[in-house]
């Protein structure tokens, strides 16, 4: 990443081990991690309080599905990448063309997808100064 500004990425994942892992990967890649949030409520709070440049979120958050967060992110114009162990069909039709990565994934693949998504969005970082 050549950008001077560090992008911040919101991680929405309920499984602690996986959240820790993503955090480590992102931190190593130079991103600032917001969260992680393990529930919809927590995620929505973070979106409101600390809107990220990008969100990486799992479909399944314990017993609930993350669709409300999708909607909120969509409204807010925040790009997001969907991570899931499920297959793509489970994604609602309106989000099916969004970036999707099936677990388990390879770290380089995730990083590439993040770069591409950020580039496509062409949104200036809205991260608060860290």
């Amino acid at each position, binding site marked *: 990443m050549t950008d001077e500004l560090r992008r911040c990425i919101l991680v929405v994942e309920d499984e602690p*081990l996986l959240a820790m892992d993503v955090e480590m990967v992102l931190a190593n890649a130079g991103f600032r991690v917001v969260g992680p949030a393990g529930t919809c409520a927590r995620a929505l709070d973070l979106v409101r309080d600390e809107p990220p440049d990008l969100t990486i979120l799992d479909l399944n958050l314990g017993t609930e599905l993350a669709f409300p967060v999708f909607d909120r992110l969509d409204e807010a114009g925040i790009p997001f990448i969907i991570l899931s*162990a499920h297959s793509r069909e489970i994604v609602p039709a309106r989000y099916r063309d969004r970036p999707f990565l099936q677990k388990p*994934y390879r770290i380089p693949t995730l990083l590439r997808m993040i770069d591409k998504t950020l580039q496509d969005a062409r949104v200036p970082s809205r991260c608060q100064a860290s």
Partner: protein
Amino acid sequence: MASQDNYPVVGIGASAGGLEALEGLFRAMPADTGMTFALVTHLARGHVSSLVEILSRFTAMAVKTAADGVTLEPNELYVCPPDHIMTMVDGKLRLQLRADEAQRKPIDVFLSSLAEARGPASIGILLSGGGSDGTLGIKAIKERGGLTLAQGGDGSGPLQTGMPDTAIAAGVVDLVLPVEEMASRLADYARNFGKIEALLKDDHRNEQNVEEKRNGYQSIYRILHNQVGHDFSGYKENSFQRRVRHRMQVLQVASLSQYVARLREDPDEVTMLFRDLLIGVTNFFRDPNAFEILEKTIIPGIFEGKGASDTVRIWVPGCATGEEVYSIAILVREHLDTLRVTPKVQIFATDIDDHALVVARTGRYPEPLLEYVSKPRLQRFFTGDDVSYAINKNIRDMCIFSAHSVIKDPPFSRIDLISCRNLLIYFGTEFQARVIPVFHFALRPRGYLFLGTAENVNQFSDLFSPIDKKQRIFQRRDHVTSPMHLPAFTPATRDVPSGADMRRAPGAMASNLRHAVESRVLERFAPAHVVINREGDILHYSAHTGKYLEPAPGLPNRQLVAMARRGVRLDLRNALREATQSRRPVKRERIAVEIDDRVQQVDIIVEPLGDNPRDPLFLVIFQDVGPLVPADLPPHDDNIRNHSGQHFEQELRDTRERLQATVEEYESAVEELKSSNEELQSMNEELQSTNEELETSKEELQSVNEELQTVNSELNVKVDEVDRANSDLRNVFESTQIATIFLDHNMVIRSFTPAVTGIFNLISSDRGRPLTDIANHLADMGDLKRDIQSVLENGHPIDRRVHRRDGTEHYLMRILPYRGRNNIIDGILVTFVNVTKIVEAEVQQRTLVEELNHRVRNMLTVVGAIANQTLAKSGSPDRFAEAFLGRLHAMGKSYALVSQENWGGVSLSEILMSQLQNHAEEREGRVQIGGPPISFAPPEALALGLVFHELATNAVKYGALARSKGRVAVTWGIQKNRLIITWLERDGAKVGKPGRKGFGTELIERELKSALGAKVSFDYAPEGIEVQITIPPEAKYIASVGRDGK
């Protein structure tokens, strides 16, 4: 006629109601009588009969369908198939296909051919049935010496009596029995058949035997002559002996002398023998000589002088089965063809009751009975094939059949020819004496009487004169009044001196002279006179009655008063009335008789004559008074005594005139009444003719009715079977849960199982509507119509998965061909099998698989994350391996523990034990665990497993378990609704607070937070670490009261 084995063949005829009769007969019939049985029935055209099958149940004998050319075997029953005519030739059965065989009287045909083939070894049986088929066949069997039976009597009498009754009425049945008795009689008959024949055969070697036989027959002739008055000794010996043998067979009498004794004591048997002897007399043209005379002499005679407006009337009393009548009709027809001018012809054929007439009215005869009909006549007057013939309509229409008794009913009149050849012989002489005068009355003047060869009119030679004595042809004598009212003539009134008078022997000569003298005196001097009877008919004229009598115009009339001249009539009538009433002489004086234009005064005397009180006679004498004088002359002085009486006389004359006129009017009125009477008679005859036609229609209906009854009988048997099959089918339908719809080839619903109503809105009145009409709840049916068409054509089933529109039920729809008779596709079956459960299971399975995939991927991701994290913190590959594998191992143990509990609750102790197990074993007593029973669900149990693993690993690496003296104590309890777990390490290596949070610690914190919302605190005391986990009450765990108490 003889065959190798002379066993009897039994021909059976049956129709409506025959099934029951056959059952009764064959159930009782032994299966080893040695006879062959052949059955002919009336079956509906084209009808496939199960008769053979049904009959097999009643008898042990083999029951077979008769086939053309099959040889008859003993102890078997052959059944004639429908649409066929069966005959017997040379011991084999012949069958011919005939579409309307019932019309041809198949029973008559078969039985008469059987009679021809087997003669005395034939037996004919008529069972229940309507109509008259069989009578002629039975007659043929009887004629040829066979045994004949008809169903009747008590017990199981016939349901339909037409067939047996007609045969009985025709007098051709030997035995009338219920069917059960028939069987035992036939068995006896068969057993003794042949023995009696042998016994009676002439055995010339045995002189005594021959002598005995001759005496025996002589006795029989005598007995017959005594009872019936006929001498059979001139009869053909062979025929006579055959008849006697036959009666012996019927009665099962073994010796001739026994039979003679039987005849002596039983007059009924004598009558039966008598009838047997006479059978065969009335076949078509049977007496060739007699018929020749009829043809050449008599029939031309009765037609002579008849014009187109005249009618020739012929009467055949006792016509029975009608052969004689039709024979005469044929001769008449042939004669008519030779005439230029043809009068009308009426042939009246009568018999005692309607049963006897049924056969005659039908006019259909089997071939053997037409033996004596010449080929040209057969061709011209009959229609038929080689088995049976029917008389043609033009002949039939000449004949009128009606029931009539010659003794009781008034006779016909103005008959030209009476042919009575089969009747008188059955009457005794007394009846004959009554019947012959009836015939005399019935005949026209010079009419003919034709009698049978066994009959004669010797006593009545005064009524009939013989034309041909040998052939029994007589002509009516006309000069006698009909003697119906005068059974006995007194000799004194005879015209012609009777031979009896002449034969009065001594003194004949003297009386002749006296007679001559008296005649002369009478003639010359006696006044004119007549003798009349009580009715006023003149029986005798004297000479010279012309002055007083003249024939009345019109038909000849013997009435005296009708013939009296004018002037006399009135007084004569009065005088007669007075005399007949008072039986005393009456005189009327000075009556004026007008003779042309002159007048003669006459005294009229009427006197009773003779002394027969039952039939009084009267003598009427006309005595002239004075001469004949001209009419216009003034009355003689003697007549007028004084002038004052003149006008009285005038008045009297006027009165007489008027009276005369009245009398004449009255007489003409009587004439008119007579002619009305004639008209009424002829109307009556027309009505009789109409009646004939109705009888024929009735018979046709009866025959149809019979067919229907037979069919009905068989159908009843079938109906039971069908009922049972239907029942089975209905039960199968209702028990099946598979919805099935039956369609015909037009996609119209024929029927459906109850289970269908759940899928389609079908109700029972939807049968008959096309399937596609009806609303259904199913989707994905595809093009049902095309699918059905395809199955109809090629018979390959088509499957489709369909489901309810609301998605709740799924079905497997199969479209199958419905194969009917001969395996031809003529409909469609559509079945629906509910596969919802299967579909649901599939969905569930997909879900499970998906779930499994998801979990596995998740698991792999977690493992990947552990690897990643461990790698990041491990200095060397060895360290990495140890840590990584340790963590994986711990996870494995956790999972093992959870699945051990079948993914139910796992207790806290167990979780701890599983992670600390190794260490506890290696270092005894160094690990202690205690606390109330608490269980966690799998997700929480797994998280705790990880946590305790980290704590244990750290204890091993850095803490209490690193030194041999170190201890770990884990205790927990609930305080203020919070579950507190305390992990205490002591006496281990010295630990200090780490500078940076290790991965393990981070993991512990996050796991506890994420899974249980719990907090954790680390206290790094110098003695050892103390970790406290605080789990809030809202976390998911179960605190159960278990074995540990609390």
